[in-house]
C-alpha cells in the first residue's frame, strides 16, 4: 500500500487544478514511474495525488494546420515512439524516449512527467531543447507557454508551480522542418539505465548538403539542468560538414558551456571527456541522417 493521503482522479483540467489548489500536499501523478517510487522511498510519502492520466487535453499528438506539432503531456514513451506524426516529422524524439528504462517503464511513463520531474538526466529533455519546445502549463489564471530553455531552475526544480498542470509541448514547424538529428545516451548498461550523459544534435544542411545552415546541441547530465550550447552551435554555422577542425572547435566550445558534477555514476572529468567526444559522434550521426 502506498502512503497516499488523498487520491483524486481528475477527468477534466478544471477538476485537476481545483484538486491541486484545495490540498497543499497534493502533487500531480500520471504514469507513476517516478512519483510512486518516490512515495515508496519516503521522499513524497504522505502526499496527496491528483491523477491527470484521464484528462483528454493531455492525450495524443497533433500536427496543426500551420505545421506546428503539439504533444500531449500524458503521452507514454511507447506511444510517442510509435506515433505516426513523430515518426514522420521528429523521429529523433521517438528514438530518444525509446532509451528510457525498459519496455514496461516506457509503457507507463510519460513525456510530461519526464520533463516536469526536473531531472537533468531526462532522456527527452536534450532533444526538446534542440527543438525549442514550449512547455504548456495550465493554472488558475489560464495557460502559459514557457520555452523549455527557461523551464528548468535547478536540479529537480522547474518554473512549474505545484498548482499548475503541464498539458503538453508545442514545437514550431520552423524548429523541426528541414532538420535531422540524433540523440546519444551514454550509460554502462544498454537498458534499465539512467544516462551518465546524454547528447542531442540537430542539423539543418545547405541545399547541396555540403555545409551547415544551422546546428543545435544540448546535453543531459552535463549541468544541474539539461543544457543547450549556443556558442558551440555558432561555431559550425555555414561551415562545411567535412571541416574536421571546425567540428573539433565545436566540441571544445561545448566544454565552456557545461558544468557537470561528480556522482557515483561518473566523475566530472569523465563527463567532460564524454561531452567532447559525444558532441563529435552525435554530430556525425546527425549529419548522416540529414544526408539521406
Amino acid at each position, binding site marked *: *500500500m*502506498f*502512503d*497516499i493521503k488523498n*487520491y483524486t*482522479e481528475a477527468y477534466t483540467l478544471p477538476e485537476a487544478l481545483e484538486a491541486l489548489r484545495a490540498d497543499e500536499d497534493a502533487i500531480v501523478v500520471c504514469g*507513476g*514511474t517516478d512519483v*510512486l*517510487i518516490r512515495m*515508496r522511498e519516503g521522499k513524497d510519502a504522505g502526499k496527496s495525488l491528483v*491523477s491527470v*492520466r484521464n484528462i483528454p487535453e493531455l492525450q495524443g499528438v497533433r500536427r496543426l494546420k500551420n505545421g506546428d506539432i503539439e504533444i500531449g503531456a500524458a503521452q507514454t514513451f*511507447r506511444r510517442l515512439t510509435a506515433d505516426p506524426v513523430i515518426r514522420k516529422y521528429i523521429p529523433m524524439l521517438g528514438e530518444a524516449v525509446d532509451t528510457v*528504462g*525498459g*519496455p*514496461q*517503464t516506457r*509503457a*507507463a511513463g510519460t513525456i510530461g512527467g519526464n520533463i516536469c520531474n526536473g531531472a537533468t538526466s531526462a532522456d527527452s529533455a536534450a532533444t526538446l531543447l534542440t527543438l525549442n519546445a514550449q512547455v504548456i502549463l495550465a493554472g488558475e489564471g489560464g495557460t502559459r507557454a514557457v520555452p523549455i530553455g527557461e523551464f528548468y531552475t535547478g536540479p529537480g526544480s522547474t518554473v512549474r508551480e505545484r498548482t499548475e498542470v503541464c498539458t503538453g509541448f508545442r514545437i514550431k514547424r520552423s524548429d523541426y522542418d528541414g532538420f535531422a538529428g540524433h540523440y546519444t545516451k551514454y550509460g554502462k548498461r*544498454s*537498458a*534499465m539505465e539512467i544516462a551518465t550523459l546524454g547528447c542531442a544534435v540537430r542539423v539543418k544542411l545547405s541545399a547541396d548538403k555540403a555545409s551547415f545552415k544551422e546546428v543545435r546541441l544540448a546535453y543531459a547530465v552535463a549541468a544541474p539542468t539539461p543544457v543547450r550550447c549556443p556558442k558551440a552551435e555558432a561555431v559550425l554555422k555555414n561551415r562545411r560538414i567535412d571541416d574536421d577542425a571546425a567540428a573539433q572547435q565545436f566540441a571544445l566550445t561545448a566544454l565552456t558551456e557545461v558544468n557537470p558534477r561528480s556522482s557515483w555514476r561518473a566523475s566530472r572529468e569523465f563527463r567532460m571527456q564524454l561531452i567532447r567526444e559525444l558532441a563529435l559522434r552525435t554530430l556525425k550521426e546527425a549529419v548522416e541522417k540529414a544526408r539521406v
Partner: protein
Amino acid sequence: MLKVIRMKVNGSLKELAVDERESLLNTLRTRLGLTSVKMGCEVGECGACTVLVDGEAVDSCIYLTVWADGKSVLTVEGLKKNTGELSRIQQIFVDEAAVQCGFCTPGLIMSAVEIVGEKKSYTRDELRRKISGHLCRCTGYENILNAMERVVKEVSDKEIPV
C-alpha cells in the same frame, strides 16, 4: 478510501472494492489469489510483477489498481488451456530450460505474450531489448532468448486469450 472498480481479469469481469492506495500487484495477489504475479523489487526494475493491461506489459508494482478500472488484465493464470494444460508459450519455456528458480518466469511469459500479440518477427538482438525490463539471476538469459525465438516463430496471436 475504498473504490469500486470493474476490470476484466483473465477473461472474466470482476467488480471489486479496492483501496485507492493499493498497487495492481497487491490486488492481484492478495484479493484475487493470482500468485503468478511476483513481488520483486517493487520499484519497476525487475519485471517479476509484469502483467498485461489492455495487451500492454506493465510493472504491476508501480501501477495503481484504480488505473485498471474498465481495463482488461491478463496474468499467467489466464493462459492455461481449458484442459488445465500449459499454454504453448509456457511449454516452450519448459522445453528450452528457460526456467530455473522460476521467479522471473511469469513476468517473462507475459512479455512473450505481448510480443506474440504484436504479430512481428524479431531478431535475437531485438528480443534481447524487448526483455530488457526483466531481471533473471539464474539462467544468464541464453535459454530465455532461445525460448523467445521459438515463441515468436511458432506461436500465433490467435492462441492468446484476450
